[in-house]
C-alpha cells in the first residue's frame, strides 16, 4: 500500500517537536544543572495507512518520540497533531477519546499484560472502556474474532499470560491494540524480544492485519532488517534529531548521511556474506546532555570537515528524501551520499 501524500491531509504531523529534561550532572548537590535534549526539534508527517520506520541507537530519542506522539509526555516545544487537531497531554477526556484511535505495542509483552487476567478478558478490556454500548456477548464475540485474526486458538481464551509463549503474548498485545480499530499504531521494538522464527510470524501478522484494516504506524526498531521489512518510509535519528529520511530502499541501499552509512554497514546479515566492507565508528554516541556543537555526529564522523564542528546542518528536504549533512549535497543541487571514509573502512578481516 503506498499512500498518496498529496491527496489527503496527513494523519499525524510533528512540527519542531522537542522534549527536554532538566538533569543534574554527577556531583550530587554540587552537580551542575544541565538539559538533556531527548528529542530536539523534529518534523515528520505520517499519511493515513503509512508505516514510518524510526531507527537509531539507544538514547537517540526514538522512544521519547513515541511517548510524545501518544501524548504520554508533553512536548517542551513544537506540537503533534493527529487528524488535524493537537494531541492533548492532560490525560483528560479528549485525550482518552483520542487514545481510542491510537494504540501502542511495546517490546515486552509480559510487562504490557496483566498477569492476573485471562487473555480474552484483556483483549476485550479496551471495548469495555471505550465501547460501553456493546453488550457483554458482543464484546466476547469481538474478542474471539480478534484472537482468530492474530492466530490464537479459541481454547486459549481462558489462559493467563504466563501460560503462553513470548510470541503468543505479543499476539495478545496486538489483538488488544487492534480491538478498537485504531488509525495509528505506535510500535516500539515490537519484535526485539522474540526469537527469529517467532519474529517472522509476528511481522507477517502485522503486515496482514495492516492490509486488512489499513492502520498507519510509527514503527520503532534498532533492527534495520526489520524496519526494511515493515516500513514505507524510514527516518534515522541521532541524538534527538532526524538526520536522514527516505524510502527503505533509498536509505538502506544508498545512505546519504555518514551515520546511516555506518549503521547500515554495521548491520550483520547472514545473507550478505562476509565480504562486505564495514565502517567502524570510533567512540560511543555522546551523552545527550552534552551534545557537541555543530553537527552532533561530528566527533564520531569519519569524514567530518571544519565546518561540521561549528555549523549545525539543517535537515534539507528534496521530494521524499531528506538529509542533515554538509557533505551530502551534490555539486549541482540535490543530494549525493557523503564521501566514504578511506581509512575507517575496515574489511571483514580488519
Amino acid at each position, binding site marked *: 500500500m503506498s499512500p498518496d501524500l498529496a491527496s489527503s491531509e496527513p494523519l499525524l504531523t510533528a512540527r519542531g517537536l522537542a522534549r527536554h529534561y532538566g538533569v543534574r550532572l554527577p556531583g550530587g548537590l554540587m552537580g551542575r544543572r544541565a538539559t538533556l535534549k531527548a528529542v530536539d526539534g523534529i518534523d515528520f508527517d505520517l499519511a493515513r495507512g503509512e508505516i514510518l520506520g524510526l531507527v537509531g*541507537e*539507544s538514547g537517540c530519542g526514538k522512544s521519547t518520540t513515541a511517548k510524545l506522539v501518544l501524548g504520554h509526555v508533553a512536548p517542551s516545544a513544537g506540537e503533534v497533531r493527529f487528524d488535524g487537531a493537537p494531541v492533548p497531554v492532560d490525560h483528560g477526556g479528549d485525550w482518552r477519546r483520542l487514545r481510542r484511535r491510537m494504540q501502542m505495542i511495546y517490546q515486552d509483552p509480559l510487562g504490557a499484560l496483566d498477569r492476573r487476567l485471562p487473555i480474552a478478558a484483556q483483549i476485550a478490556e479496551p471495548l469495555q472502556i471505550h465501547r460501553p454500548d456493546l453488550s457483554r456477548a458482543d464484546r466476547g464475540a469481538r474478542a474471539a474474532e480478534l484472537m482468530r485474526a492474530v492466530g490464537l486458538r479459541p481454547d486459549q481464551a481462558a489462559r493467563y499470560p504466563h501460560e503462553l*509463549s*513470548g*510470541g*503468543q503474548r505479543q499476539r495478545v498485545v496486538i489483538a488488544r491494540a487492534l480491538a478498537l480499530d485504531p488509525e495509528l499504531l505506535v510500535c516500539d521494538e515490537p519484535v526485539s524480544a522474540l*526469537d*527469529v*522464527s*517467532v*519474529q*517472522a*510470524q509476528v*511481522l*507477517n501478522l502485522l*503486515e496482514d492485519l495492516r492490509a486488512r484494516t489499513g492502520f498507519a504506524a510509527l514503527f520503532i526498531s*534498532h533492527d*534495520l*532488517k*526489520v524496519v*526494511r*521489512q515493515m516500513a514505507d518510509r524510514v527516518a534515522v535519528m541521532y541524538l534527538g534529531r532526524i538526520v536522514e529520511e527516505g524510502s*527503505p530502499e533509498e536509505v*538502506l*541501499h*544508498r*545512505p546519504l548521511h555518514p551515520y546511516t*552509512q*555506518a*549503521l*547500515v*554497514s*554495521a*548491520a*550483520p*546479515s*547472514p*545473507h*550478505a*556474506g*562476509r*565480504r*562486505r*566492507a*564495514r*565502517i*567502524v*565508528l*570510533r567512540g*560511543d*554516541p555522546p551523552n545527550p546532555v552534552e551534545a557537541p556543537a555543530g553537527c552532533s555526529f561530528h566527533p*564520531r564522523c569519519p569524514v567530518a570537515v571544519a565546518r561540521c564542528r561549528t555549523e549545525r546542518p539543517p535537515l534539507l528536504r528534496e521530494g521524499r528524501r531528506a538529509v542533515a549533512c554538509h557533505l551530502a549535497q551534490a555539486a549541482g543541487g540535490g543530494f549525493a551520499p557523503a564521501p*566514504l571514509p578511506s581509512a575507517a*573502512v*575496515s*574489511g*571483514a*578481516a*580488519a
Partner: protein
Amino acid sequence: MPTAPLPASPRDLHGASPAAGPAPSAAPLATLRGLTVDFDIGERYVRALHGVDLTIARGETLGVVGESGCGKSITWLAALGLLGPGARVGGSAVFDGQELIGMRPRGLDRLRGGRIALIFQDPASALNPVQRIGRQIGESLALHRGLRGRAARDEARRLLDRVGIANAAQRLDEYPHELSGGMNQRVMIAMALAGEPDLLIADEPTTALDATIQAQILDLLRDLQAESGMALALISHDLGVIADMADRVAVMYSGRVIEEAPAGRLFAAPAHPYARGLLAALPDIEGPKRRLETIPGSVPPPHALPPGCAFAARCPHVDGVCETAPPPLRPVPGAPARRAACARLEALVRPPEPAPVLQRQEQRA
C-alpha cells in the same frame, strides 16, 4: 554503501595462517562428547541438554546459534562446572587433554578465568559495581599470573589499552557505572585477556550493545584472536553476527546440535529443515523484499519433548520415521565436513554437483 570486495580474511585461510595454530589434524583444543544436563525441578529431573558433541580447534571460531532455551549457553556453563547444585551434568568435556566433568574445584578454578575465559551479554551485571575497574582486572592478574602492585597495575593499563579504551590510566580508577555499555564490555574482554586464555567463550557478547558499538566489539575480538591465536566459542542468537565471525557453526535446537558445518556452507545451503527455516525467517537488508517464511508453532518445552525429532511438529518435511526416535547427528550426504541430525537428509539435500536439467529428467524417468 561500501560493498567493495575485500581480500580474504586470515580466518578464511585458517589452516595456513600462523595464528591459527597447528594443522587441523592435531587434537582439538576442546572436545565435548555426549554432554548432558538434567535440571532438578523438585520431584524429578528434566533433561535440558541431550548429549552434545562439539569440538573447537586451536585458534578456531566456533559459532553456536539457536533460539532461547536451545541449550547454547548451558552447554558451556555445564562444561565449566558453573551450573550449580541443581544441575546434574553427564558426558565428557576435555580441554587440552584434561577432563573437566568431575574435576575438583581447585583444578577448575585454575582453568576458569585463566586458560578458559568467559564473557557474557550484560557486562554491567558481570562487573562488581562497587570496585574500581583496575582492581577488578588486578584480581584476575593476581589469580592467574601472580602479578601484584605496580606490575599488576601496569599490566591492567596495557590490557585496557589493548581493548581500545582511551585514557587507560584514568579509567583504572573509575567504576563500571562511569563507563558506557560498550566500554564495560571492553573491560570484560580485558579481564578475560588477563589470564591469557586459549579459549574465550563469549555468550551473546554484543546483544546488549548498539549496532555501531557491536561492530567495534566484534572487530576487537577478531583482532585479539588474530594476535593471540586463542579459540573463540561465540554463542549468539544473531545469525548475522555468527555469519560474520565464525569459521564453523553449530545450530542447536531443544538441547541438541542439529547441524554443524563450515560457516559459509551453512549459510549458503543449510541442510537441516530447522536451519533452513531460521534463515528463511530472517528479513534482509539486501535483495528483493519478500514475505518472510515462518516456522509454524513454537519450540516444545524441555519437559514435554516428543519421542522422535524435537522439530517434527514444526517441520514441513516430516515423515513417519521422524516420530520414532531422535535422529542422530550424521554426515550430510556428499559433504563429509557437514553433519546434520535429520532422518530425511537424503530426500532433502541435493546431490553435491550442480545437476543440469537433463540429468534431473533422467532421474525422474
